[in-house]
């Protein structure tokens, strides 16, 4: 069953597919770069939406998996291994393992505990990144060689890289769409909706929530591998707690537990940041230097007054 909303999402993806041609025509390669960044964060937000939106787990530590994905690529590259298959495989596998470890402890808890624990473990990984001098420590390190895929795709070619990211974004959206409508997804949403009832009809929440947590972490790890290829630079800042907050904000801004929400949220937030930092209409310094002030005000206003998110404005039935 394909809803109006999902047709709109498909249309957005098709539009994104037309961007490289348009960017080349108007000679604005900068936008290709910006949209690639938007799509990479959208993949991370899609993965977070699976547990935050559909699973009701307020994870304040999702940036951890961006970091692990990034470090998996960066560390292998540092030691001269440039195979994308290995790098990205490690990014996904290591993220899944870390999510399993963090999830095994945190998923048993709920409410404020869950929020603080996911935040704390991510901070632990952040400090770990800072303290390992071998891989750049505090300053991070350059990852000058992009992942190599036996000549299949060339990530040094901006357009090819762009289409690869777009493809992975589309695949992530489709995967989450299937997941949340499967038996597994129904249980996940049931636990969010009414845990006592779900236990009473015979489901133990723990394994389902943990599985979702691991899937989500692995998907975000892949986004991390893409991000480090995009920036060609790896720093512990990938795992900064404000990053986790931004990912959550993308999901809320776009519309929690909707398929198009994470993409819309990532796009609006990152484009807004870009605009605020380069806005020429207002006194430049006041806005550019303190754009986080406006972001903060925007965030508070969205939470207080626009709870349904941008996807709620789209035509079609609310999911």
């Amino acid at each position, binding site marked *: 069953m394909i809803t109006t909303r999902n047709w709109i999402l498909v249309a957005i993806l098709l539009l994104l597919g037309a961007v490289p041609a348009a960017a080349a025509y108007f000679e604005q390669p900068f936008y290709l770069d910006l949209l690639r960044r938007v799509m990479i964060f959208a993949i991370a937000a899609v993965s977070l939406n699976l547990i935050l939106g559909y699973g009701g787990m307020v994870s304040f530590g999702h940036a951890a998996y961006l970091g692990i994905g990034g470090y998996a690529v960066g560390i292998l590259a540092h030691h001269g291994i440039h195979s994308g298959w290995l790098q990205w495989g490690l990014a996904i596998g290591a993220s899944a393992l870390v999510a399993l470890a963090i999830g095994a402890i945190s998923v048993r808890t709920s409410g*404020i505990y869950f929020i603080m*624990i996911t935040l704390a*473990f991510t901070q*632990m990984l952040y400090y770990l990144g800072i303290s390992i001098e071998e891989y750049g420590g505090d300053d991070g390190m350059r990852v000058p060689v992009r992942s190599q895929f036996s000549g299949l795709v060339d990530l040094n070619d901006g357009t090819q890289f762009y289409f690869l990211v777009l493809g992975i974004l589309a695949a992530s959206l489709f995967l989450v769409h299937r997941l949340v409508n499967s038996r597994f997804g129904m249980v996940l949403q049931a636990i969010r909706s009414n845990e006592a009832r779900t236990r009473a009809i015979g489901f133990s929440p723990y394994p389902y929530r943990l599985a979702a947590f691991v899937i989500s972490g692995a998907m975000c790890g892949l986004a991390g591998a893409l991000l480090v290829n995009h920036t060609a630079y790896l720093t512990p800042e990938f795992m900064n707690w404000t990053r986790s907050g931004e990912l959550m904000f993308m999901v809320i801004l776009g519309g929690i537990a909707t398929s198009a929400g994470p993409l819309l949220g990532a796009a609006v937030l990152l484009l807004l940041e870009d605009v605020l930092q380069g806005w020429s209409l207002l006194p430049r310094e006041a806005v550019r230097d303190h754009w986080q002030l406006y972001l903060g005000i925007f*965030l508070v206003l969205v939470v207080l007054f626009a709870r349904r998110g941008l996807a709620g404005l789209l035509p079609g039935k609310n999911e």
Partner: protein
Amino acid sequence: MNYILIAEQTLNGLQLGVMLFLLAAGLTLVFGIMNLVNLAHGALYMVGAYLTTWFYQATGSYLLAVVLGLAGTLAVGIVTELVALRTLYERDHLDQVLATFGLILIFNELIAIVWGRAALYSTIPDYLSGHVQLTDSLRYPLYRLVIIGVGLAVAVLLWFTVSRTRIGMLIRAGASNRAMVAALGVNIRLLYTIVFGVGAALAGLAGLLSGPIYAVQPGMGELILIQVFVVIVIGGIGSIRGAFAGALIVGMVDTMGRAFLKPTLATVLSPTAAETAGPALASMLIYLLMAAVLAFRPEGLFPSRGS
């Protein structure tokens, strides 16, 4: 091992511990009684440090600066509660996290607009500087001893208030059963504002005390806030006793880890391996401790909820 060094690090651990306690005490009550996730608690710590530093520079009187700094933080805290946080009590945790995350950005930028992004140089008056000869061979900074003294005094005062007074009874009842307190006909709004104000003032106190030791700069609140979360998770949400125990444990473990882990590892590993693993492990230690506590006591060491 060097016993002088151990004694000195124990005092350092105690000093970090009471600092964390000052922050954790207010926050754990806000969690427990209002069921509010307040990320902006660290911002009040920052406000306390800035206001006091600024007042000290402006007036030249440290005591006056401390009084004004505390009053200012209290005022900022209460205004924040009235304007923004009050509307969040009935919202879910996700909204609370995001809105208070937004508040952090706002506070940090406002501070940066007023005082700039560079770290402020915070001083202490002469009568608090210098060292104290504790034993023949142990000299310890007077100011850090003062912090320990103030922290322990506050702990005793809080313990007395919570366990021996009427308001303390309400606070304890509120932390374990909010609906019950509301049913007793207590003005719950007022209780919330009082608890939040006290928490804000304690955060400001921690901030002004820490100013001369750590850097006074925008964002200083968040780094310590996450450590405070670890304290509260270990101690158990809503429990002053838990906050105290958790704070001392975290303060000690963190300080000892940073001081002794590398040399200890060097006795078993190669020096280069210890050079890498020591700092890495030391920075992870309190989080691993938290994981261990949670594995055995998911509600923390002193759970106050439900029962």
